[in-house]
C-alpha cells in the first residue's frame, strides 16, 4: 500500500488520540468543579474502565506496528531519539498485553512509567525538530533527529504521533478499573 495513505492513516489515528486525551483532561478537570461533569466522568469510567487496560495494549500494538511500518516498509530511517521512544513503546505491548489478559491491574504502574518516559523523549524530540540548535548547529547528512520524515498538516510529525500514543496510553491506564465502579460492592 502507498506509504502516503498509511502515513495519513497514522496521522488521523494520532489526531483522534489527541482529541480523546484532550476530552479526558477536560472531563477530569471539569469534574472538580461541575457535578454534571463528575457524573459524566463516572459514567465514562464505568463503561471504559474495565476495557481500558486492553485498549492501552491495543494502542501500544498499533504504535509499534506503525513504527515498524515506517522504518521497514516506508524506509524512514529511525534517528537516535526515535530509538529511545521505541525502547519505551515496544515493551508496552507485552507489559500491557499480558496485564490485560491476566487482568493484572498492578502492571498499570510499570506501563505508566514506560509511557511517561516515552512521552518525555517525544516532547524533547518535538523541541529538537522545532529548535534544531538544541542539539547541534548543523545537520548530520545521514539522519539528524531534526529531520522530519513526516510533516502532516504542518504540525504532526513522527514524534508527535508517538507522543499522542503515549498520552493516550497514560489516559487509558488512569481510567483502567478492574470492574465497573457501579458494579463494585
Amino acid at each position, binding site marked *: 500500500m502507498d506509504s502516503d*495513505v498509511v502515513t495519513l492513516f497514522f496521522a488521523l489515528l494520532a489526531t483522534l488520540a489527541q482529541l480523546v486525551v484532550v476530552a479526558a483532561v477536560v472531563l477530569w478537570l471539569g469534574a472538580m468543579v461541575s457535578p454534571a461533569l463528575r457524573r459524566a466522568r463516572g459514567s465514562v469510567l464505568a463503561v471504559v474502565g474495565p*476495557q481500558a487496560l486492553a485498549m492501552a495494549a491495543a494502542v501500544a500494538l498499533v504504535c509499534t506496528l506503525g513504527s515498524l511500518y515506517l522504518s521497514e516498509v516506508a524506509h524512514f530511517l529511525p534517528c537516535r531519539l526515535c530509538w529511545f521512544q521505541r525502547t519505551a513503546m515496544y515493551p508496552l505491548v507485552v507489559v500491557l498485553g499480558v496485564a490485560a489478559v491476566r487482568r493484572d491491574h498492578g502492571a498499570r504502574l510499570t506501563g505508566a512509567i514506560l509511557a511517561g518516559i516515552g512521552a518525555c523523549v517525544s516532547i524533547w524530540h518535538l523541541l529538537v525538530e522545532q529548535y534544531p540548535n538544541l542539539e*547541534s548547529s*548543523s545537520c548530520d547528512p545521514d539522519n539528524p533527529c531534526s529531520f522530519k520524515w513526516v510533516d502532516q498538516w504542518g504540525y504532526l510529525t513522527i514524534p508527535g504521533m508517538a507522543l499522542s500514543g503515549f498520552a493516550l496510553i497514560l489516559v487509558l491506564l488512569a481510567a483502567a478499573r478492574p470492574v465497573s465502579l457501579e458494579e463494585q460492592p
Partner: protein
Amino acid sequence: MTSPSNPGAETSSNGAVIWIGVGVVIVVLGIAAIFFARGSGDEKVENQTGSVSVGGSSTTTGGGSPQDAAPEGSLPEYDATLAEDPAVGMTIPTVTGSDFAGDDLTIAGDDGKAKVIVFVAHWCPHCQKEVPLLKEHLDEVPMPDDVELLTVSTSVQPGATNYPPQEWLEGEGWSAPVLADDEDSTVAQEFGLSSFPYFVVVDADGKVVTRASGELTTDQFDDLVKAAQEGSV
C-alpha cells in the same frame, strides 16, 4: 418473572460495544486516508539532481551518503574539532554539472576567482534558517566583485520535507548560482562535506582557505568572504 440485572453481562455487553465502536472508527479513518491521500504523493521533480563530472570522469546516479569514501584527489572530510584543517592549501576539485534549469555550471579552482561555496540540503532545518538569513544579509551587503558566491544543492531526497530544492531556494529569493548535485552527492563528497550547511572558502588560486559547517552568523559569513578575498583567515 423478570430476572435481576446481571452486572457481568452488562459489562461484557458494554465492552463489545466499545470494541465494535473502536473498530468502526478505525475503518472510517482508513477509508478517509485512502480517499484523501489519493494523488497527494510526492512526485519526483526533474533537474533537482543532475549528472556531475569530476575532473574528466562522469558520475552516475545511485544511493549513497556524502560520508561514503570519497574518490582520490578530493578534499578530506571536514572535521571541525581539528586545530588545523588538512584541506587548507589544497586545490579544490573541478566539478561540472548543471543548475536547476539544466544549464551547465562548473566549479573550478583555475578560473582565477575567489569563491565561497555553500552546500545546502533542502530538508535540513539549519539550512532552512541559514539561507534566508544570508539572503537578507546579501541584500544589504552584496558580495564583493572579486568573490563569487556559489551554491551546491545536495543530498536531495524526494519525499522529504521542503522538496524540491529549486522551489525552496527560488522561494527564498536565493540568486546565487546553484549546482544540482547528483543522487550520490558526489560534489559533496569531493569537497569533504560532513554536515549541513557547509562552507568552502577558496582563494583566487583555487586553494582552500578555510572551511566551516553549521549555521553561521552574518558576521561569520563576512569573515569567510574576507578570507576568500585575502587568501587567508
